[in-house]
């Protein structure tokens, strides 16, 4: 399958990028023109190189408006955390970033989601290619009932990734910090692994197709604290080469792993979730500007 023109251009320009040239960004303080103008300076996009540029993004499920007016930039090779109470639309927003909402009947996305300057919702953009570049890891580890090797190789194979498959498997497992634990059992069923190992296997599977971005939807919520810390360490490791967007209910986790944090809030559960505040994680957790952010992160919400 040929990638569409514009995205192919994006991909080839990506090939030239090195982490050197992208690590020099200085945090910006410029106010966003924010779709909802009254949001003002609480939503400050980083002035680093941008991977995702969202403008006035909204999602409706049938007659229900799940999120609206989301405008922000997400920087390259950084970890951006999306936080907020249940039903605020953070997972919906995450799914906008690789067109996973396409798979939900009745879901309509408005506004623009630019990925390296290309609106991924343009008619000529191939959603499958989008999802290859922008991988996803889910709340519950969901390995295939196959061997460890097959789990990692499967996606790479169907995505037409060329090269020595054993090398791809090893490299992906190493990147996911799982290699040392499974290298002697590669033919064992993935289902025999512990929950934490299964989640790292899913990360290895996502890495095998050589993505640029990894979306994580509460990746540690079914893991114990030790396995959670391993995934968090891994996230910090991976952001040297990948852009990571993570949805988490665990505020301390957002504080530990992310560089930027976006706080979302809905008028009522599942309705009209909005971006309240966005900025460097240290600022959000030590001195948030918006009272609603303050109330949420200090546990005085609701």
């Amino acid at each position, binding site marked *: 399958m040929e990638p569409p023109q514009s995205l192919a251009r994006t991909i080839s320009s990506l090939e030239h990028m090195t982490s050197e040239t992208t690590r020099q960004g200085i945090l910006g303080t410029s106010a966003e023109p924010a779709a909802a103008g009254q949001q003002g300076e609480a939503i400050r996009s980083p002035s680093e190189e941008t991977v995702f540029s969202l403008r006035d993004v909204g999602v409706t499920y049938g007659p229900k408006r799940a999120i609206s007016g989301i405008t922000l930039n997400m920087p390259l090779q950084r970890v951006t955390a999306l936080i907020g109470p249940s039903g605020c639309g953070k997972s919906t927003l995450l799914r906008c970033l690789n067109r996973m909402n396409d798979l939900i009947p009745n879901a309509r996305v408005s506004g623009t989601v630019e990925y390296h300057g290309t609106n991924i919702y343009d008619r000529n953009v191939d959603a499958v290619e989008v999802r290859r570049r922008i991988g996803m890891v889910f709340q519950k580890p969901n390995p295939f009932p196959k061997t460890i090797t097959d789990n990692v190789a499967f996606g790479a194979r169907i995505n037409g990734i060329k090269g020595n498959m054993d090398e791809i498997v090893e490299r992906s497992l190493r990147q996911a910090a799982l290699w040392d634990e499974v290298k002697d059992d590669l033919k064992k069923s993935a289902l025999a692994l512990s929950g934490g190992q299964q989640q790292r296997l899913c990360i290895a599977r996502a890495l095998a197709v050589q993505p640029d971005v990894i979306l994580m939807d509460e990746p540690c919520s079914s893991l114990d604290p030790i396995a959670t810390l391993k995934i968090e360490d891994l996230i910090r490791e991976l952001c040297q080469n990948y852009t990571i967007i993570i949805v988490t209910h665990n*505020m*301390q986790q957002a*504080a530990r792993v992310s560089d930027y944090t976006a706080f979302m809030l809905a008028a009522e559960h599942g309705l009209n979730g909005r971006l309240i505040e966005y900025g460097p994680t240290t600022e959000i*957790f*030590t*001195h*948030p500007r918006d009272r609603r*952010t*303050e109330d949420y*992160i*200090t*546990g*005085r*919400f*609701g």
Partner: protein
Amino acid sequence: MTRSGFERQLAEVQEDMLVMAGMVETSIIQSIEALRLRDVALARRTIENDAEIDRRRYEVEERCIELISLQAPLASDLRTIISVLHISVDLERMGDHAEGIAKIALMLADEPPLKPYIDIPRMAEVAIDMLHGSVEAYKMRDTKRAREIIDMDDVVDGLYEQVYHELLLFMIDDPTLTQRATYMIWVAHNLERIADRTTNICERVVYLVEGRLHDLNVSKY
């Protein structure tokens, strides 16, 4: 979800710190009274009371550590606890300075007075006003008041210079006065340090409200 247990503990640790502040204020007043009235018993009592201030400081610190480790406070809660930690250390040190003055009061009790006390009680008065005001500014989260108090430090620094030079002249005039004059310089120095530490409290008030860490006490001296 309101975290009522946590809010109560946060209020309590701040209350403990404010009680400490009251004890330190009393200590400073008593140490200067002991000096002025040559009251040996009062000086001794002031010295003894400092142990209680020290004990409370560690108690406040332990409670702060407990809150940080068990409650993982964030945002204004975190800034409050960090402020309490810093302020309680400043208060404890102010208590030590008051104890220092009381010790000098003991040493000078049997000596004839060098001169009538004028500038030193004046310094003490301003320093006590500053301490009192900084604690009020903390309670009210009043950054304007905090900044005004920081400016008052120049008055204390000015008085200190004056006392210092005056006592130096005493020593030059009559070297037999050197020991007593030196003690008096120590007293003035302790008061100058107390006033300086009240500006730290004021800086914490600004941090608490505005989230910014600054050295606001840029002295003319």
